């Protein structure tokens, strides 16, 4: 789905949720956030191992809507930067 395939051609690339563009999907790896925020996000479906798809964004690209666990949640870039995801090319 995503285009920025690096030269080393890793089978799995690790990056942050903020790097996903509209329509990109990834597997969630870890939430490097305050425990309150991380737990709230987990309650909304952002659980390590789940699949996240980036959706529409507000003008300027921030915040962005993410589809996860059957729901849609809007998050700011400052939050998604701390969420590690894995994309399988």
């Amino acid at each position, binding site marked *: 789905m995503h285009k920025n395939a690096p030269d080393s051609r890793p089978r799995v690339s690790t990056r942050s949720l903020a790097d996903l563009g509209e329509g990109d999907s990834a597997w969630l790896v870890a939430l490097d956030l305050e425990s309150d925020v991380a737990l709230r996000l987990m309650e909304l479906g952002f659980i390590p191992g789940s699949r996240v798809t980036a959706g529409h964004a*507000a003008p300027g690209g921030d915040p962005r809507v993410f589809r996860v666990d059957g729901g849609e949640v809007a998050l700011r870039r400052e939050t998604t930067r701390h969420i590690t995801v894995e994309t399988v090319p």
Partner: protein
Amino acid sequence: MSACHPPPMERAPRRATRTRPATVAIVGAPNSGKSTLFNRLTGLRQKVANYPGVTVEHRTGMASLRDGRAVTLIDLPGSYGLAPRSEDERVVERVLGGTMPGVPRPDAVLLVLDATNLGRNLALAAPVLALGLPTLVVLNMADELEARGGTLDTVALAGQLGATVALVSATRGEGLETVQRFLEGTFAVPARIELPVIQNVPACRLWAGRVADRSAYRAPAPAIWTRRLDGVFLHPLAGPLVFLAVVVGVFQTMFTVARPMMDGVEALVLGSGRWLGAVMPASPFRDLLVEGVWGGVGSVVVFLPQILLLFLFIGILEDSGYLARAAVITDRTMARVGLQGKSFIPLLSAYACAVPAIMATRTIENRRDRLATILIAPFMTCAARLPVYTLIIAAFLPERPVLGPFVGTRAAALLGLYALGFLAAVGTARLLKSTILRSGRTPFILELPPYRWPTFRSLGLRLLDRAKVFLTRAGTIILGVAVALWLLAHLPLSGGRAPAIADSVAGTLGRAVEPAIAPLGFDWRVGIGLVTSLAAREVIVGTLGAIHGVEGGASSSAGLQEALRKNLTPGGAVALLVFFAFAMQCVSTLAVVKRETGGWKYPVLQFTYMLTLAYLGALAANQIVGRLVGT
């Protein structure tokens, strides 16, 4: 197996022998249709109150049973889990645990889950079932589940959960027989089942997934219309345009469509007042009733159509799901002043009235952001400022076209005053967020519900509630001020006759404040108006009218404008506008701020700050305009 039959099975591991529950709590995630079910079960028999000491709304209602008895229902705030992190969740935890003062521990629980996203919603079942209270699992949105091709086996789910399961559509009122039967007392304590460690969110979610799988749950297809609409409403170009069109449309309608309705109410009030004056024998009591009560209260009741219209719009936007998208679109702009997208909704409602706006800040989880929003909301140009603005502008500004035939000098001045209030709000937000309400970066986490048609029932209940609040205010505060003012203007009696207004108690009061307000260009007449308008802004119009009337002027709005021109310099007029743009002259707002912030600290701070700003702003306006005009 994959049956979707509405009268679902009851599974009662321990058949109920206990008495009917007296209090039943409704628990569920936000957007699960909890409140729709609550409205459906209680109808008009509900009331809103606050829990003591906390700022979370408390809705209770009576549900009638088929045998004529009734059950008290508590609609708890929406919560994703029972780990108390937000203020809302603390309330849920305390009510369910029986530690909320003034609220009896519920005898049973209605757990409302969104059947279209059972996996995630079921995670809430683990902590709720662990409470050991008699629980009915209400799977809501049965109609949506079916329409989008989802299925599940409710009997298997009941077996998995050890509790009775009802598949309902609260919007359509389908499948509610099981809920009725549960409330009547033929319910069961849930069977002991193996639950995950409830503090462990991923474990709860895994458990929920397993339970859903074993109940043959097939998730429905994604909501196609929601995707399509978001393609427009969150489109980089179309999104902001639609948003602007919505905001402009709401305001335009409020001022154009509401106009004839307001004229109608005004004609009704004036006509009935005149009739009353004609049929009653001449007496001080008749004057009090006609001038004081009818004049004072009537000038405020006129705003009811406009306020209800605004609430209708906000209700439609909220219930349809658009408001959440508006919050996403405005988040970046709000972040510039240190707030967030969730502050947008209350600030928009503040253009009608700050009181409901301040109550609407409850959706903002971060306490400091919420306080900042509460403190700036009264700067938004509320409906009560309009009569004051309209009167002064009409008296001092001749109408000339500015921008073509549509925007004249008067409309431009009015828009300028809206902008002035908005700028004061933005500036204050910045000030607050960089000083006393400084907080770390607030995570903005907002779930976007699917778009849904608003129902007449929920919109109607909301409008009814608002009309009640507004009319109560008109019938108490404004009535009180109107009567008090009338009395003050007619006392002390000298030789059995009312004194000249300047010698009355009100006049003495106005003279007492005159030295303080003279630098702003205000005389004692305006002084009386400023004192009475501390109760509510719009009262000043009635006050000035009353003073003018007592002084023997014509009781028409043209006569009042004439009198204003005589008693105010242009500098004083601009100063008065600026004063009203900034000052906190509203007892209801102060009361609601005290209630919502849990003390006198913030309302006192807010009142002092706004009054200081108003005084300095009016002083500057009078001096500057006075120099320019040369008076």
